[in-house]
């Protein structure tokens, strides 16, 4: 079974540019999550999709971040325009269920974003 995949693995862009990160969850997993780790800090929740619907986007930093999951399969996270403080590692995770006892999240390798 293929795991969660993310593309690209690294991205270096200049301040003001746009970057789009992609996540492919494990097949059949309705729940998809985005997290971010800024250097030296904890991994923080950004948002949660159930199929194509945003269940919770309370962790999104600001309106420069836009996440989509058209068709309920893969998801994209766009940062436009990127700022220096957006640098970090962006993790995607998926789970089969969000119910107690069956909600283990499987993580992708992350995308390391560097904004210069």
């Amino acid at each position, binding site marked *: 079974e293929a*795991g*969660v995949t993310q593309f690209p693995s690294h991205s270096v862009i200049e301040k003001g540019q746009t970057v789009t990160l992609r996540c492919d969850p494990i097949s059949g997993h309705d*729940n998809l*999550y985005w*997290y971010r780790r800024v250097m030296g*800090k*904890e*991994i*923080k*929740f950004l948002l*949660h999709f159930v199929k194509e619907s945003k*269940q*919770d986007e*309370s*962790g999104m930093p600001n309106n420069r971040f836009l996440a989509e999951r058209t068709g309920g399969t893969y998801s994209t996270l766009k940062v436009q325009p990127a700022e220096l403080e957006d640098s970090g590692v962006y*993790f995607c*995770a998926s789970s089969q269920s*969000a119910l*107690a*006892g069956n*909600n*283990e*999240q*499987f*993580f*992708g*390798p*992350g995308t390391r974003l560097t904004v210069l």
Partner: protein
Amino acid sequence: AQSVSQHNHHVILSEAASLELGCNYSYGGTVNLFWYVQYPGQHLQLLLKYFSGDPLVKGIKGFEAEFIKSKFSFNLRKPSVQWSDTAEYFCAGGVYTTSGTYKYIFGTGTRLKVLA
């Protein structure tokens, strides 16, 4: 506020030494707790998880953790570490929010270096 804290940020041990990494959580309701590991260049992998039942949880690679409700703790242990255990370890709590979503709250991570 809901939080998970890890008190050891950097730990250096010699091979065969015993390991204990601290994790405390601060939230009520359903308690789901996880330990993830990230080996250099790899993605986050689940070591073990606690949902309910026996508070002593056995995980992969000889790791175990004990859930102590009275201390709000879920410390990770291994009796004898190996050089290959060099990695970053993350404690996470799974929480349900008032909006019905489920997300992880992570600690800041502990970098473990095992000297051969």
